[in-house]
């Protein structure tokens, strides 16, 4: 593999919902400024893994996590970790776009505001920069007071990306960000991901093999809570080492 910094390293990560184990001994390293795709059949634990990277699973009652997740060499599951700070560093985009029922402006300004930014100029600047980064600026710049919910599905998702970017994260977790979108909107998001990886480390869950092949540098294949294979996307899609992986990407199951 290339000579790159590993941004995230998970070691022997196990996760339980009550007594049900959803992740089994996941150990992998995610490289800085790369796009890593998580693929696998439904229910194999992709979302669970993704959510364990910013401790969103903490919000679900009865979950138990074992093992470590190191981000910049700090285990985020050790005692004394500030989860709020962690989530500012590790942003998240959800499958179903979920803008707040507020104006476009207020949606993007939400993050800076909760960080205590009150200065109007800084807020405006942040909103503009984030919307530009998420390639939404040109479409909404005259209408920032419009409700975020009044946008189209693809625009809403880019608004959510802008909202996440406004907090200045280093890592972006995306859970099937384009699954509810039409091909044109999907293409826009993919293009965006390609641009964003210059500055961000991106982990993306997708059910769409072509999408994984198009946008990602690395691909991890999950199956029933286990990490089956993890390699350069090129390698996974051209010469997978495991039979299960090959079956999955050629559409023979799932």
């Amino acid at each position, binding site marked *: 593999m290339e000579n790159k910094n590993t941004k995230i390293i998970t070691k022997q990560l196990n996760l339980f919902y009550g007594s049900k184990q959803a992740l089994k001994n996941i150990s992998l390293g995610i490289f800085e400024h790369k796009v890593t795709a998580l693929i696998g059949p439904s229910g194999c634990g992709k979302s669970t893994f993704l959510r364990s990277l910013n401790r969103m699973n903490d919000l679900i009652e009865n979950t138990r996590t074992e093992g470590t997740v190191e*981000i910049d060499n*700090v285990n*985020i599951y*050790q005692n*004394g*970790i*500030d989860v*709020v*700070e*962690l989530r500012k*560093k590790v942003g998240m985009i959800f499958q179903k776009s979920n803008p707040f029922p507020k104006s476009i402006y207020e949606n993007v300004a939400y993050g800076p505001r909760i960080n205590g930014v009150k200065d109007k100029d800084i807020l405006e600047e942040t909103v503009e920069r984030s919307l530009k980064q998420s390639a939404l600026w040109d479409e909404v710049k005259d209408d920032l007071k419009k409700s975020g919910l009044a946008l189209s599905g693809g625009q809403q998702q880019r608004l959510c990306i802008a909202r996440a970017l406004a907090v*200045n994260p*280093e890592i972006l977790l995306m859970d099937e960000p384009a699954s509810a979108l039409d091909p044109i909107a999907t293409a826009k998001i993919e293009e965006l991901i390609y641009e964003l990886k*210059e*500055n961000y480390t991106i982990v993306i869950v997708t059910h769409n093999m072509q999408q994984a092949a198009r946008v990602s540098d690395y691909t991890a294949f999950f199956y029933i809570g286990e990490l089956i294979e993890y390699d350069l996307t090129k390698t996974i899609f051209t010469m997978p080492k495991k039979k299960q992986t090959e079956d999955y990407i050629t559409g023979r199951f799932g």
Partner: protein
Amino acid sequence: MKNQLGRNRKNLLHKKFRWSEFLAEKLITLTAFISFVFIVLIFIFVFREAAPIFSSEEKKVSLIQAGEVQETYGDVEENNSPITSNQTSALETSGSEGDASLSNLTGTEWQPVSEVPKYGLLPLILGSLKVTLIAIFLAAPIAILAALFTAMFAPRWAKELLKPAIEILAGFPSVVIGFFALIVLATFVQNLFGFEYRLNAFVGGLAMSLAVIPIVFTISEDALTAVPKHLSEASLALGATKWQTALFVVLPAATPGIFAAILLGIGRAFGETMIVLMATGNAAIFSTQIVEPVRTMSATIGAEMAEVVFGETHYNVLFLIGALLFLFTFTLNAIAEIFIRQRLMKKFSGN
């Protein structure tokens, strides 16, 4: 690049202590605890004010035997001065005399303001029971049948008429129902049946049924609509008619819920004050006749508390009545809760 993005990470390991979060959580928990605190306080204070009756019982009994009973009613002066421990005991012995002995409390006469006050609770308890039973006997069939109607037979438009009607009925202040009963209903009923007394237990119960119907209806309807669809569909598929399904499948399946509805209805009727205060005639007669005036427990408190001297036996007895009301409705609600829970359990295990 990093500078341009303005990333200025705080150390993740340095967990920030957020005072506002900490205080807010404590404050919110504390505020939520208020409900509990007040339930306990209600319990304590209602019983506390009733307690002197029991604490000085022995003394009273001996006083009766010694024949030293004779005291005027109401010691206003003593009440207005700050109560010292000396005076408190003076109050107890002088103000309360031999009135509230157990035998007096279980008597059949309620004459708290007579020369020799009589605190017999039986006519009041009987009065409450009479009115409650009349109310529930009138309200339950109507409410349950109407609930069955909405759940099983009613066309859309009828539902859309009945539901708001129930909401409006539930929203009637009890004093409005009491007023209606006092002015209109009592006269109407008297003319219709030729009762001797215009205000009596029946009129009170009839008016009370208006307050009870919404409760019984709402909970019964909940129970009826919660009956799993597959049950009624199975019955209909076997060729049973709609009413057969309603009567032999849905109604039995909803029994616990309907039972709970009736219990809650009884609880409401038993505790309700203004309706009975205005519509029953308020005479503490110990009789089982339903067309005679009655005085219920709640109405007694409502009518007499304002005129009683604080700390006096009469006052304590009124609190005792309140404590009994509290206990009774509390028990009823608890039992109803169990039935409703049971129904939910069934619903879940059924799926």
